[in-house]
């Protein structure tokens, strides 16, 4: 087990390095940020000076060399826009997104397991069909549309909730609500699908024949095996939330990593782009490692490979 774990961590580190290098070059290919950073009216000579000063005119391999040696000293570079270390900016934003993601994912996962299992118990039954339609409708709605409509309804018309911003419990309701919808919809279907397969397999029939109680059949025996593909999809969804909370963060004004990344990309703030991708990648890869461990725990057949 330990050997497996260390192997996984090593290959993940290689993945992160590869990603980092790729991002460095790709980001630089998008052109000279000086153009964007200085005011439109800045004279050409000022613009040239700026590029010189920040080394954007140097050949790309020289820029890369400089970048690597800076990195070795723990220096991710300074945010061009904010005039402070990029890593500070990123580490301020990450906890916001992580808390959003963690809460949303937990609610989605537990809700999906509950609803999906119950639906799988009587396939094509009333509960199954209704939950299918509802979960899918919810998962198919464009999230920014739902968000703005929700604000118009719940904040402006009904005055039940604050429009936006970070704060106490009421401020979390709409952002989490929007974030939960899609993963919940998707996961309900996946749970249902794999539970149906699991519940019709031989060992379930055996358990039933042995007289095991229905509840135990579903939750103890069926779930254990039905969960494997669910965990895969759940892990991907968690990553998607971390990567894509940008819309919720943009609309509700939460200063998370998604919004930071898209702003930095559009402004060509290289240092922040790189630092945020690195941190996000580490988080996602860690989630993936945890998923693989969960696999091994749940399925003894895989564990003894």
């Amino acid at each position: 087990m330990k050997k497996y774990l260390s192997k996984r961590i090593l290959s993940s580190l290689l993945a992160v390095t590869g990603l980092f290098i790729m991002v460095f070059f790709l980001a630089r290919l998008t052109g000279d940020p000086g153009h964007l950073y200085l005011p439109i009216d800045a004279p050409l000579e000022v613009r040239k000076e700026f590029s010189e000063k920040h080394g954007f005119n140097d050949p790309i391999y020289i820029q890369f060399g400089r970048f690597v040696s800076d990195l070795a000293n723990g220096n991710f570079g300074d945010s061009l826009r904010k005039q402070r270390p990029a890593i500070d900016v990123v580490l301020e934003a990450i906890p916001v997104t992580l808390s959003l993601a963690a809460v949303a994912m937990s609610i989605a996962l537990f809700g999906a397991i509950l609803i999906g299992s119950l639906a799988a118990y009587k396939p094509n039954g009333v509960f199954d069909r209704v939950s299918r339609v509802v979960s899918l409708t919810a998962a198919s709605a464009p999230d920014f549309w739902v968000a703005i409509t929700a604000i118009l309804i719940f904040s402006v018309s009904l005055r039940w909730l604050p429009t936006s911003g970070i704060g106490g419990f009421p401020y979390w309701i709409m952002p989490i609500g929007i974030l939960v919808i899609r993963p919940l919809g998707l996961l309900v279907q996946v749970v249902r699908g794999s539970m149906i397969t699991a519940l019709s397999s031989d060992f379930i029939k055996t358990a039933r024949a042995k007289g095991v109680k229905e509840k135990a059949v579903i939750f103890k025996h069926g779930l254990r095996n039905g969960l494997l593909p669910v965990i895969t999809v759940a892990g991907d969804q968690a990553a998607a939330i971390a990567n894509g909370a940008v819309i919720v963060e943009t609309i509700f004004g939460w200063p998370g990593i998604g919004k930071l990344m898209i702003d930095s990309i559009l402004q060509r703030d290289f240092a922040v782009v790189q630092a945020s991708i690195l941190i996000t990648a580490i988080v996602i890869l860690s989630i993936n490692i945890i998923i693989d461990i969960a696999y091994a725990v749940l399925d003894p057949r895989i564990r003894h490979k």
Partner: protein
Amino acid sequence: MLIINEKTLILKKLKIIFSMFLNDKLALISIIFLIFILFVAIFGPYLINDSFTKMNLRLRNLAPFSFEHNFMYFLGADALGRSMIARLIVGTQNTMFIAGSAVILSMTIGGVLGLVSGFFGGKGGNIIMRLADIIMSFPSLLLAVIVLYMFDPGLINLVIVLAFTRLPIYMRTARAEVLEIRERLFVSAAISMGASNSRIIFKHIAPLTIPTLITIATLDFAFVMLGESALSFLGVGIQPPEVTWGLMVAQGRNYLQIAWWLAFFPGLIIMLVALSLNLLSSWLRIVLDPRQRWRLENIGVKNE
């Protein structure tokens, strides 16, 4: 003595399929709806008069459900006075093309990679999964901006970007399925009987992974449509004068207070298509899984 020839066999199969449809009314409605959408996608733009897609500022933000104008304006008009129905029809072609191509591309490539990784394992399999990890940590937005900047922001590039970002989900799911299936008795039996690897993969294992992959793909179709819409929301998706449903929703969001129909109808049709796909996919899942077919076939008395 029964003389069975090819023709009767095929007819019989079709009859069975059709009866399986009848037993799941929702799936029936879905497939009819989807065929209709496909028809609109292929033929729609040629059937409507050009005038309805032309700008007409006097009809700007015309409200829907009025009988005063041509029936083409029944769902209202957009910010430039173009008929919503006409815009939706034109957008169908692009939306279907983008989402369909992206999904088929990522499902095929991702599925094969996942299969290979799960079955053979080892170093190669590991590298493939690390590739999936890298892709998943790579923000699809960054890729979209770069592609938009370096090349012409066209349909093809958008398809590639969307397909690329969806790869990992198929890779991981296929691999997970293979890992599980590989351990089953019948596979060990096949191996001990000396079946070749490719025979095992393609005849025994692959067919079992397809139901899950198709389930994911039909859901993915909706997500790709929405993903394309999100890229438009952030300003890096498909650009006018091309139009997709997603772009209509993104552009309409500025008018939610005064012209809700601009974003509502395209969003609604995205939902309906996604819904149909999923209802169809769960029907497919049952049909393709030999152990579940009985639920749809007319054997004995129907219990419903």
